[in-house]
């Protein structure tokens, strides 16, 4: 292991939130954020998706919070994956955190999990996704069409085919209900 490898590994495991030298990567749309997050996490980077600061909000936004000092490494990796950010800007104030509270409703034969404004319901016995409700972004009906009637674990994940914050929230509910039913 060379010196460079040691440096990279140490920095990968560093918590970006512990530092004041934080930056955010801004992307064209939420789908690109999700793709970039997948690339970075797959390569071992500990990054977080967050809400953008008010001055750059447009509507349905996510950004990726990174340690600024690693900007070039991260940018290079994303460029290789074909998902370059529009820009990277430093941040000093607090960013909005995604919702992290789940509500579970047990209907007996059915189980529903809600994350933020999104709900997913399965039939316990068959593990079939029977309904998706809530939300207001246009990928919600699309996700419902693709997921309802499919088995939990076999259905495409909202992370892979969704494009918006509602899709992202549904992905959190989907992961939570998988955790409750498949583990």
């Amino acid at each position: 292991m060379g010196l460079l490898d040691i440096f990279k590994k140490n920095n990968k495991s560093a918590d970006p939130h512990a530092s004041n030298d934080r930056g955010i990567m801004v992307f064209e749309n939420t789908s690109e954020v999700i793709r970039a997050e997948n690339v970075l996490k797959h390569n071992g980077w500990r990054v977080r998706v967050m809400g953008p600061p008010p001055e750059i909000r447009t509507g349905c936004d996510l950004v990726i919070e990174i340690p600024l000092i690693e900007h070039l490494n991260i940018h290079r990796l994303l460029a290789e994956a074909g998902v370059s950010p529009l820009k990277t800007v430093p941040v000093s104030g607090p960013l909005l955190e995604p919702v992290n509270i789940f509500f579970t409703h047990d209907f007996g034969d059915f189980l529903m999990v809600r994350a933020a404004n999104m709900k997913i319901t399965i039939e316990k016995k068959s593990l079939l996704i029977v309904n998706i409700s809530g939300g207001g972004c246009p990928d919600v009906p699309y996700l419902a069409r693709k997921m309802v009637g499919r088995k939990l674990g076999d259905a495409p994940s909202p992370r892979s085919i969704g494009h918006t914050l509602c899709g992202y929230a549904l992905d959190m509910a989907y992961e939570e209900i998988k955790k409750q039913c498949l583990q």
Partner: protein
Amino acid sequence: MLAVVGTVPDDDFPIVDGIVSVNKDSLLIGNHEIDINRGTAALLASAFMACRFFGKPGPTAFLVGDTGRGFGSRKLYEYLVETLPERHYISLAFHYIQPDVDWHNKVLFAIDEMEARPLLIADAGFMYAAKMSGQANAYDVFTPDIGELAFLADESAPHPFYTRGFILHENQQAGQLIERAYAHHNAARYLLVKGEKDIVANKSGILDTITGPVIPAMEAIGGTGDIITGLLAGIISAGYNIQPACSMASRISRMAGKSADPHPATQVAEIIQKIPDCMELLIKQQPAGCTCDY
């Protein structure tokens, strides 16, 4: 006359502007046939049922295909900006669309150019954009569910995804959230909050709470909220005051739910089919004298 703005989950669906009708489980507009089981199509089908019940023409729909990338939504926003100033509607309901504050504001400017301002109802993505733009009070009715009410109550959240935990917590009472939403000017003139109990409110507080019939499975069924908003839009366009229209929409939706005897796997089209009979039943119970207040 009512117009409804929204999307369908098909990127190839062009901008369509026309009067809708319903045939069994399908919404018909021009030569297009759309499944009414979710989204704006469920809202439109419910609104159509209400309009037909009152002998009014079916709602006009402004639709476009969008699966979440926002391309279709932006085309539709642009189309509305060009088209709305020349149109005449009693009410205008906005639904699933990619939230975009800049385009939202342009649409509001276009509405200002209309000869007579319609009553404005916002739900789903358009309600998110309306709140985030700081112009919630330009609207006559918002129809959030309880999670979305928490978002309206959180003055710093630009989307329900960012609603802070202390506000989102289930122990928060709807009344407190409503008060907070109005205190920060993030609510429309009326709120119809959809949930286990449906609540009609304005800035003075809760005006009506509809608690029955209780159908717990409705919470899990995608599109049940769209039914309420569609009924509300249809009833308002028939000339009812907003407050009784909210209460009626809630009650009809619950009665239709009960009539369909649903479980959490029921699809919303089964409930929509029950609307005409339930309207008949409920309207017969209404006192005479409901008039317009707009």
